[in-house]
């Protein structure tokens, strides 16, 4: 008697365990078989399944040791148990809070800008469409930089909050998550390749069930970019380029593997620090920069100045550079939105093709005679 019931229990246990294992294996196989939809961006992956998709943020901040996965669940979809421990976000979302101006163009291109209900530091937003909504009071101020106002957000109850983390500790976001809100980390700012950054529109597309729209928008940008890239290769010259500006005694230049430097490479220019490693900025003493870049033909992105006089007032040493003397200084900081937000910061990640066209127009004007500079302006 005893042994029989023991055997039954044992048998049931084994059956149960086997059953569980089976389920797990099925799910793993599912994920393995579903390919990553993303081609250029290295910071995230999208895996599509029946009724849901999994968005995996692999590089939320530089040197991140962990990745973050989110399950975007359509109505009536069934989520396998193995995925239930991830944050599940019901889609399509109807209200959204984003935290970087780079997110705004994606929303607008997908036509869902009306779902934006909150943003920190709304003054930074340049896009006129969204500024109208802000002025009409439809977009609420939710804090400053990474310091989001938890009370306001909890009160608002947006369907999803798209935030970003600079490092491992994000107490504000953790707090919001604990209070029951859906928080997603967006790592678009760590993306270095021009097309990689633009591909993040698919991140937002997935949130609204507008994946195919996002795909087609991106393909269009991709085509334009590659075409412009091919055009650049036809350039006969490779002008030398200086970037950055001084603060006190230190000059900050982008490193060779950074997004800004990659653009210069794609535009067929000789960026003087192109061979430095790293994706951030390099700080150098003024003397070193003068030695290396005094003869540079062009000067890109000298910081927040709107005229050559402003530059020389701020620091008389700027006038020593040939690019300054020959008036070949181009800045993206002149084009600003109504409340001072810089358009380049907001829009350029989504439209790398426009950036590249601008740069080609600057360096090789003969290749694009009809293009008008959009992001960059020559400093007078």
């Amino acid at each position, binding site marked *: 008697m005893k042994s029989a019931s023991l055997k039954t229990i044992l048998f049931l246990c084994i059956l149960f365990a086997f059953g569980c294992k089976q389920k797990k294996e099925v799910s793993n196989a599912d994920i393995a078989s579903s390919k990553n939809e993303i081609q250029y961006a290295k910071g995230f992956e999208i895996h599509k399944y029946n009724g849901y998709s999994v968005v995996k943020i692999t590089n939320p901040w530089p040197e991140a040791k962990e990745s973050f996965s989110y399950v975007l669940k359509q109505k009536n979809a069934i989520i396998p148990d193995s995925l239930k421990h991830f944050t599940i976000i019901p889609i399509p979302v109807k209200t959204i809070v984003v935290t970087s101006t780079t997110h705004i163009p994606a929303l607008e291109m997908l036509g869902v800008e009306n779902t934006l209900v909150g943003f920190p530091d709304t003054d930074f937003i340049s896009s006129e469409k969204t500024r109208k909504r802000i002025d009409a009071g439809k977009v609420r101020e939710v804090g*400053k*930089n990474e310091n989001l106002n938890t009370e306001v957000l909890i009160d608002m109850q947006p369907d999803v909050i798209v935030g970003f983390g600079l490092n491992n500790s994000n107490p504000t976001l953790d707090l919001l998550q604990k209070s029951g809100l859906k928080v997603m980390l967006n790592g678009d700012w760590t993306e270095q390749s021009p097309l990689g950054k633009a591909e993040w529109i698919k991140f937002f597309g997935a949130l609204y069930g507008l994946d195919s729209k996002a795909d087609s928008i991106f393909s269009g940008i991709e085509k334009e970019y590659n075409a412009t890239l091919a055009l650049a290769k036809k350039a006969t010259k490779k002008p030398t380029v200086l970037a950055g500006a*001084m*603060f*006190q*005694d*230190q000059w900050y230049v982008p490193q060779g593997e950074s997004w800004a430097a990659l653009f210069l490479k794609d535009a067929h220019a000789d960026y003087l620090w192109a061979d430095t490693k790293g994706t951030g900025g390099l*700080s*150098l*003493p*003024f*003397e*070193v920069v*003068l*030695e290396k870049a*005094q003869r540079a033909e062009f000067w890109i992105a000298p910081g927040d100045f709107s005229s050559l006089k*402003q530059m020389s*007032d*701020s*620091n*008389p*040493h700027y006038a*020593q550079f040939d690019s300054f003397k020959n008036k070949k200084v181009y800045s993206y900081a002149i084009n600003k939105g109504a409340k*001072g937000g810089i358009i380049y910061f907001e829009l350029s990640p989504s439209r790398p093709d426009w950036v590249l066209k601008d740069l080609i127009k600057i360096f090789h004007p003969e290749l694009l005679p009809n293009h008008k500079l959009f992001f960059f302006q020559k400093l007078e």
Partner: protein
Amino acid sequence: MNQTKRNTVLFLILTIVVLCLFVINISLGSVSIPLKEVIHSLIGGTSSKETWQYIIIDYRLPKAITAVLVGMGLSISGLLMQTLFRNPLAGPYVLGLSSGASLGVAMVILGAAFLPASVASLLLSSYGIVLASSLGSFLVLMAVLVVSYRLRDTMAILIVGLMFGSLTSAIVGTLSYFSTAEQLQKFTFWSLGNLGNLSWTSILVLFTCVLIGLLLSLFSIKPLNALLLGENYARSLGLNYKKARLIIIFSTSILAGSITAFAGPIAFIGLAVPHIAKLVFQTSNHVVLFWSTLLFGASIMLICDSISQVPGGDITLPINAVTSIFGAPIVIWLLIRKRKMIG
């Protein structure tokens, strides 16, 4: 007298040292330029490389001049403060000048968010910072003096200065809380001090202010010597204490205020150099101390600046880091020595 002979020799050596350090300072930097080229350019010739010419004449030379002015000005104001307050730990900033400057500059850099964009960009130019710093120093100095006047005690000024320092730190801290990373970096950079990047016009203004301050200090030498015996004896010698104190405070304000406005708050030089002078010349006579402090101040500042350039390297150190590394051990050593004298 033996002492006078010794002093003359010391002064001669010091003067030569200052001149040498001046030239050495100009010849050292991130870019290696041979000494021959440096001297050639300085005496009026042109260097073989255009960039070298510019670096020597328009970058390093103004920096060296600034270093000399800063070293002299801050050291003398430190000497004045130490004798007036009979406190060896007093420095040029005890009157609240650097806290006021920090407050002014913080309002411009960190508080830019609270100002309309047009005003903010105007103030962020280099002249704006100089103006904000001077105004801040002036206002806090006035506040300290008004409060101290009611207290009648000269020593009270020290404490009031300290209190205002805490107050301004609190305000600056609050402003930092609402600032972006970029603003904070700008402000931090300012507070780390910077001797370079002054236009020739700025140097002229700074030179004028320092000259006025030094001349006034010269006239304070006799009162300072009288004060060596204490306020009561000094009065019995016919010293107009109130007037003397006013002139001393005024000269310190011009010296430390203008230097902080153009170069940011430079730490420790004002505190440490007078002690070095007293140590080497072994006297309390302010005639000797005035000139020795001046020369030591210039030398040490030139040395610190040369170190901060990290010659041959690709980085530069902020000047405050170097002066602090120089000055802190001296202050510690002083405290130990003072204990011995009391005990």
